[in-house]
Structures are given as C-alpha cells and as structure tokens.
C-alpha cells in the first residue's frame, strides 16, 4: 500500500519486555520521525532520522532505541517496557526538497501500546 504504515496497530505487553514498533513508508522520504501522544502532553518527539543511518534524539528518547538501515523503514524499540511508556505512538515522514524550508510531515495511523 502506498503511504505510511505502522504495525502492530495495537499491542499489549508486560513490564520489562522488549517491544518493537514498525514503521514503513513508500515515498522514499528522507526524514522519518517517532512521536508519542499522551493526554495532557500532546505529541512529543522521541527520535528522528534525516536519512538512512542518521538518527538523533528528540524530546523524550530515554528507554527507546531506533535504527534506520533502509530509507523506507524506521523501527522503534522499547528495550525494557515500563508502564510510563503506555501511549499512542505515531510515525511520520517528510520529504527533503532542498532549500531553506522544510516540508509537511505525513503521519501513520498510530500504534496503541499498553504496558501492564
């Protein structure tokens, strides 16, 4: 399917387990992002990537690991899940067209993660 997809859409796990959320985009966008959305906090950036093999921390990176070996994929791993990581996770991508200005971000449908 064209666009940006996330899997799984829903996940329930237990404290201490490792969880990987997948994100895939078909546009070959340079930028990819991971956000979490929590009531009272809005969306907060976890990690982002400007290109394959280039990643950087966002506002709330602790407890998360990312990798980007291919342009189209940007998995997010919770190494040892905690209850505070219960949230809705959104992946996004953005095209880099050069120049001074950035472009809009396109969001995936989200993954609802519950950590028991």
């Amino acid at each position, binding site marked *: 399917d064209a666009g940006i997809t996330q899997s799984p859409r829903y996940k329930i796990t237990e404290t201490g387990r490792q969880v990987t959320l997948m994100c895939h985009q078909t546009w070959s966008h340079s930028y990819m*992002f991971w956000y979490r959305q929590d009531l009272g*906090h809005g*969306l907060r*950036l976890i990690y982002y990537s400007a290109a394959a093999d280039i990643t950087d921390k966002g506002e709330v990176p602790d407890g998360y690991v990312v990798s980007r070996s291919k342009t189209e994929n940007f998995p997010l791993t919770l190494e040892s899940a905690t209850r505070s990581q219960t949230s809705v996770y*959104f992946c996004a991508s*953005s095209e880099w067209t050069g120049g001074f*200005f950035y472009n809009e971000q396109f*969001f995936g449908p989200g993954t609802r993660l519950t950590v028991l």
Partner: protein
Amino acid sequence: SQQGEEDPQALSIQEGENATMNCSYKTSINNLQWYRQNSGRGLVHLILIRSNEREKHSGRLRVTLDTSKKSSSLLITASRAADTASYFCATAPWGNNRLAFGKGNQVVVIP
C-alpha cells in the same frame, strides 16, 4: 524547546459558523503547520505556512502568521459537522525538521 500553544483549548460552534484558533510560539521558526486529528485517528496535515509568508488559504481554511508577535491563527469558514476534531499547531525551528506541537484545540461543530 519551542512549542506551539493553542488558544482557546475547546470550541463549540453551530454548523455554518466560522471557527478561529490561535497559536503562539516562543522562538524563531522555519515554518508553522496545522494538523487535524479525529478521535482515535492519526494526524492529517492541513496547511503549512513558511516564516516568510503571512497568509495562506486552502479550501475553507485560512492561516495567518505574524512573526513579530510569534503567533498564528487558523480560520475554518462555514464549518461542518465533519470538522469536529482536535486541531494542533506545530512549529519547525531553523536548523532541523523537528516539530514541536501544541496541546491541541478541541472543536465541536453542532449540526
């Protein structure tokens, strides 16, 4: 980090009326974007306005940007029940493409 801050937080209007939301931010920006989120769904990009632009239109949407006041407004004209959603502003700083989101405006359009 800079953040968009929307005002007001919740808005309830009758179908056909206009809805206006404001967003303020603190530091210099590359661009400001508005997104819509329906309940339980992902974010949909509405409009992007660059820092060297003052106004943009897209269908029933009008966005203004005042960089001297560090504020933006989103106007939805002739609202419809389908416009019921949360609306977020987000700012991108110079130097990187990291968006900082406000907490969102809940808009309810009553048929």
